[in-house]
């Protein structure tokens, strides 16, 4: 995973609530077995069917910060949603509320999800609509979003922040605790289910 410290770019205002992962990337694009190359599926139905859709507007073509309505990323557990956003050029998604699995997946794939109050989301929407070239800086080190004359702090737990700043792989971190895992395994009851081999019915 790439480390994330700070990112400056322009913002695309996505004025929709409860954007589900089927909209971020439909199931037909999930048949691929690669981890990259999902940009063609990103919001593909809205891009095809709605000429005014924000990502169809040339002025937002270079946006790297997506500012969305509440409850972004509901539905499926597909991490492909995060990969598609990254492949589509986004490094940050800002919303007042995220779905749990999407948010969790984002922290594993290097996409920063920033929670701001809805009033701040609306202010960012207004700024990006008034001037699409508005430079927005998302600083994970200082936990703040700045644009124009505005400075908006955000919360993120210290552990996740540290992992993102360092670009650390979770598996490697967990492997440091192998003795704890082995001790736990020694205590597990023998009757717990096993997939191999099947016991005769």
């Amino acid at each position, binding site marked *: 995973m790439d480390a994330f410290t700070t990112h400056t770019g322009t913002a695309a205002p996505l004025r929709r609530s409860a954007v589900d992962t089927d909209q971020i990337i439909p199931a037909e694009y999930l048949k691929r077995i690669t981890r990259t190359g999902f940009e063609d599926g990103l919001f593909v139905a809205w891009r095809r069917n709605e000429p005014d859709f924000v990502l169809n507007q040339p002025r937002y073509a270079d946006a790297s910060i997506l500012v969305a309505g509440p409850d972004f990323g509901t539905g499926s*557990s597909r991490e492909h949603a995060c990969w598609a956003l990254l492949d589509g050029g986004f490094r940050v998604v800002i919303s007042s509320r995220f779905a749990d699995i999407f948010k969790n997946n984002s922290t594993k794939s290097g996409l920063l999800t920033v929670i701001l109050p809805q009033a701040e989301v609306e202010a960012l929407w207004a700024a990006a609509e008034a001037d699409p070239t508005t430079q927005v800086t998302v600083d994970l080190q200082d936990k703040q979003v700045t644009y124009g004359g505005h400075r908006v702090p955000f919360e993120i737990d210290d552990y996740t922040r540290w992992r993102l700043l360092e670009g650390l792989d979770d598996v490697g971190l967990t492997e440091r605790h192998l003795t704890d895992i082995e001790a736990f395994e020694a205590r597990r009851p023998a009757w717990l289910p096993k997939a*191999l081999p099947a016991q005769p019915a």
Partner: protein
Amino acid sequence: MPKTLAEKVYDAHVVRSAAGEPDLLYIDLHLVHEVTSPQAFDGLRAAGRTVRHPELTMATEDHNVPTLEILKPIADPVSRAQVEALRKNAAEFGIRLAPMGDRDQGIVHVIGPQLGLTQPGTTIVCGDSHTSTHGAFGALAFGIGTSEVEHVLATQTLPQYRPKQMAVTVDGELPEGVSSKDVILAVIAEIGTNGAAGHVIEYRGSAIEALSMEARMTICNMSIEAGARAGLIAPDETTFEFLRGRPHAPQGADWDAAVEYWRTLRTDEGAVFDTEVVLDAASLTPFVTWGTNPGQGLPIAESVPDPAAIADEGERRAAEQALAYMGLTPGTPLREIEVDTVFLGSCTNGRIEDLRIAAELLRGKHIDPDTRMLVVPGSVGVKLQAEAEGLDRVFTEAGAEWRGAGCSMCLGMNPDQLKPGERSASTSNRNFQGRQGKGGRTHLVSPSVAAATALTGRLTAPADLADAPVPATV
């Protein structure tokens, strides 16, 4: 300190806990399917890692599989390559796989319980958000992304933050023709599509206790549609009876030891929930969705809502967008909405009891001539059971199509899809835009509403049928 059921299961699986870090949670069972796993296996290979516990891992093919001509190679080359990748990975890493054509193949959330792998008090994960289904057994079961799939394969653990606790209490008796699907659709409409974010839901109360295991699975399955991390129900005699004698259930002295432990898996008196929701079972009626998320639902006796009457600007805009996509006019009675397709199946409602309920309504009748009905059993096991009971003939004689097992039209990764503009009544779990095919429109319903709708060609409750044992009162 008194604990909730979910807290008990969580605490029993903490491998390591340290201030300022997530807990490391042990995973008892990892279910794997073809869609969310290939990149995880690639990650293992790239890092030179192995699967720590192949015997705690079970794979099947479900999302991509065709439901016709299932013994032939998959026609779609991209789907075929994904299924072949799973076969190669399972063989290379020593994981048991139930491939197409295998007696144990089926939707991952149907086969776990069917094989007795899903057991009370365990932690279960899968790269699929409907893993919450297994919570019906008092397991802590949740969906994960592909990076986490890789993490569990490598370490049999997951870093987790302690979830908040929500109680959904449903007391009283469900009226005739009202099922657990109606209960969960009503719950989601109440909580909202992400209203349970950060929470584990425990479903409790006399109406929940009275439900069969199949009906409990339907409820827990859709916990994610309210945004919950997981949903669970305390195990009881119904749970134990369901599990007894299943291939992977404990036997003999192990069974006794297991049941003794399982009986402790109840929320303690005085345990505190962060959030509580209460529903009166007797007040519930058949529920259908009108919009494009599972929280946009209403009792079938109501009409398509008018967005202009919604005060909150965000919700009003969402309702306007939903109605535009769904091609619906405010004020139209839901019962007047005509459908092209009825889909009976999925991890929500593709189990034997669901098929029995629908078959009973269709027996000796014929579906509407302009409506097609797809019946897709959740697993080969369900299919064989249904055929042994003659349900397949009930469906085909009524004019429905009897298919092979898999996820099918729930998400349209195989050829079973809606065409643009087509409308379905579907027993699945998501009515998102394009979910069942590009431009397709989905109304989520229970199996009995699905069957009644197939007979009339428009959204219909069983009580609306002319020969209903209990006539409609609303």
